[in-house]
């Protein structure tokens, strides 16, 4: 922030804090995506290795089997070593990454005593959790 303009200029506490928050969010996002990618690649190696020459077509929609449609089912079948489930677990970690970022932001704004933005962030978190768990309850 200010330090880009003049490296010797001392940062105010607020600026220093915001820069720390931004760095932590950046690391959180990068870490989440990296972890997700590693899990997806692990599943992909198993998947491509098992039947590389099989015919594949996505022309007609059949929907995914039950164990690939819920958090519980994905985790259980992935740990059972199923290639498609391991890839799906990686995708689930990817979906969880922005949610983790929002949870982190709740605490970051709380430490800053920014009550208004704590409330905004909690609203966003509520919508995200409703989507992930509310729709599973319905399904």
């Amino acid at each position: 922030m200010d330090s880009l303009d003049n490296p010797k200029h001392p940062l105010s506490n607020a600026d220093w804090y915001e820069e720390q928050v931004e760095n932590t969010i950046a690391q959180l996002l990068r870490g989440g995506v990296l972890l997700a990618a590693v899990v997806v690649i692990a599943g992909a190696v198993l998947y491509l290795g098992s039947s590389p020459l099989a015919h594949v077509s996505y022309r007609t929609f059949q929907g995914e089997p039950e164990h690939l449609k819920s958090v519980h089912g994905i985790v259980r079948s992935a740990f059972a070593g199923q290639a498609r489930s391991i890839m799906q677990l990686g995708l689930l970690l990817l979906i969880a990454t922005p949610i983790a970022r929002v949870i982190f932001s709740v605490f970051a704004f709380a430490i800053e005593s920014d009550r208004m933005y704590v409330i905004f962030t909690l609203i966003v978190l509520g919508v995200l959790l409703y989507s992930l768990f509310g729709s599973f309850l319905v399904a």
Partner: protein
Amino acid sequence: MNVLAFTFLLWIGSLFAGFLGALTGLGGGVVLVPLLTIFFHVDLRYAIGASLVSVIATSSGSAAAYLKEGFSNIRIGMFLEIATTLGALLGAYLTAKVPASVIAIIFGIVLLYSAYVSRRTRPREEIAQAPDPIATKLKMNSSFPDTTGLRTYNVYRVPAGFGIMFGAGALSGLLGIGSGALKVVAMDQAMKIPFKVSTTTSNFMIGVTAAASAGVYLSRGYIDPALAMPVMLGVLIGSLMGTRVLVKTRTKSLRLVFSVVIVLLGVEMLIKGIGGKF
């Protein structure tokens, strides 16, 4: 086509989509669904699912790079995410209710509009008026590093921006795209936020918006791991490459190239949608 060839071709195609999407700030998702449906003959619902997952990867992957550059505005992003996530939830529910051909037609219109927005050059008049009092109250006015040093900016018309963001979220949930074009319109045109801040904050918001509809998609079986895998990995690597170039290149000629691609895909989606080919 066999698994190996299909996966590899899909990965290459997604790599290009991610690269162009990150460069223009329009997101890779906008070309992914037409790419999957038109060239790989994938069912629209599977395509939307794979696209949405990739959108999260692009956003999170490149937001990490942008945040370090100091372009993104976290407060603007978080406030507007209230609108985009609620919209996304609505859009995801609508996907099951709306016929595929109608979704394709809406998709075509969105593609053409994205191209139009990216081509339109807005004279950057210096605004003398005071910033929106709401923006001041929400602590949105900020600064970002420019070539000449730190540039400060004010934020205008917050309610209009919030409204457009709800629409952007709904389209994101309905079509499985990041809605980067509309998000940039809300911030750049309505709220008068500098272009670089708009595009990077938009990228930052897209992941959270997409996560709001991803849960609904997953429980409906729209997300196929074997299809989403090459798409997500391709888009992720492509967007990371695109992000590195953004700071250095002038975006003008690239946006022209990308707009032409988008127009062609938009027309194709419209024709197929109207012809009931979905």
